[in-house]
């Protein structure tokens, strides 16, 4: 369990005195405590944490600071999802997170950075936070803090600035016109200052296989691989559905330059984002 104490408006050293009183009066000495304070109020709180056998971490919220006091020796729960395929990792982490209390943390490891990116999309969509990411040996790691989803104020959807475009491509190299349309529309959207994300789904992942776009040609246009390279260099994000790729025996090493594998959570997150206009090819 994690106790949260909002101490906004209390300055140092009073915030430290409050922290000492809170730590002294805890019923469970293994309980973690989060203090939400104004910047500057944390001065002296580290000495309080040491005195009561806690380690202290400071992280910045939007305007305020989060001071987390963790009993020394308490270890964070860890989970390794290496080898699991989409949507396995998202479901495993989601289940584990649901058993945690708000404020508790979980370390998630995987050999694939793309898998962690998918988990990150699912976690942030559910309201929890990613506190940090990095590597440990051959594993990519993220640290997650459980939180509750904040309700969006009414009216926000209608004023969302739709300045991003999601192009869903599910026909692949088997339909040259749709394949061309994907990248020509991307080019137009980029020229209009839009941020473009292409999600290759089902047959669409055939475009992601290294060298396959070079075979799609039309006299009126440059070869598809040229358009694709141009879009990657222009900053277009290109995802290939992990499941669709697995169905076709396409692995990470078979992917064309600039394409990343992504799971169902990333796709759902993109579709749910009101700032995206969605186009299907």
């Amino acid at each position: 369990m994690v106790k949260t104490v909002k101490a906004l408006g209390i300055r140092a050293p009073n915030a430290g005195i409050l922290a000492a009183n809170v730590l002294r009066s805890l019923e469970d000495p293994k309980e973690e405590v989060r203090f939400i304070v104004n910047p500057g109020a944390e001065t002296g709180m580290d000495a309080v944490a040491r005195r009561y056998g806690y380690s202290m971490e400071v992280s910045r919220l939007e305007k305020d600071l989060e001071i987390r006091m963790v009993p020394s020796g308490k270890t964070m729960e860890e989970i390794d999802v290496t080898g699991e395929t989409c949507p396995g990792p998202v479901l495993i982490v989601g289940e584990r997170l649901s058993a945690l209390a708000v404020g508790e943390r979980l370390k998630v490891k995987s050999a694939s950075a793309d898998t962690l990116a998918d988990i990150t999309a699912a976690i942030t969509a559910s309201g929890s936070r990613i506190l940090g990411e990095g590597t440990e040996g051959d594993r990519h790691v993220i640290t997650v803090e459980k939180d509750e989803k904040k309700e969006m104020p009414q009216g926000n959807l209608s004023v969302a600035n739709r300045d991003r475009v999601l192009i869903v491509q599910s026909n692949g190299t088997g339909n040259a016109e749709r394949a061309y349309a994907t990248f020509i529309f991307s080019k137009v959207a980029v020229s209009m200052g839009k941020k473009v994300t292409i999600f290759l789904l089902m047959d669409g992942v055939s475009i992601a296989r290294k060298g396959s776009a070079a075979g799609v040609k039309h006299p009126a246009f440059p070869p598809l691989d040229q358009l694709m390279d141009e879009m990657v260099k222009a900053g277009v994000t290109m995802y290939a559905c992990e499941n669709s790729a697995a169905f076709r025996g396409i692995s990470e090493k078979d992917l064309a330059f600039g394409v990343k594998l992504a799971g169902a959570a990333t796709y759902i997150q993109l579709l749910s984002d009101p700032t995206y206009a969605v186009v299907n090819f």
Partner: protein
Amino acid sequence: MNMTYQVIALAILFSSMITGFIIFRMQGMKLAPHFGALILALIVTLAALITGISAVAVVAAFLQVIVTLTAYTQLYKILQDNFQTAPGYGAHLALVTMLPVLAIAGLLM
């Protein structure tokens, strides 16, 4: 040489022109070598039937086999990864797959 097989091959080549045109529209210039082979085989098969010359019929049979080979070599990459659009190519592949059988039958019987 039995010219009956060449008549059947000619009918298949005509039909393949239609199915081939449809997949050419879907696929674009990638299929140009196959479409070229198809047109050439059609012309030579027609010439073999009009002239009745065995040597021309042998060339026609050879080109009919080439039509099948180019269809598969050009479409292999597409069929490898495109499961949903593959049926669009089915009719053309089914037609051209008959050609080598007829070509061999025409030469041997």
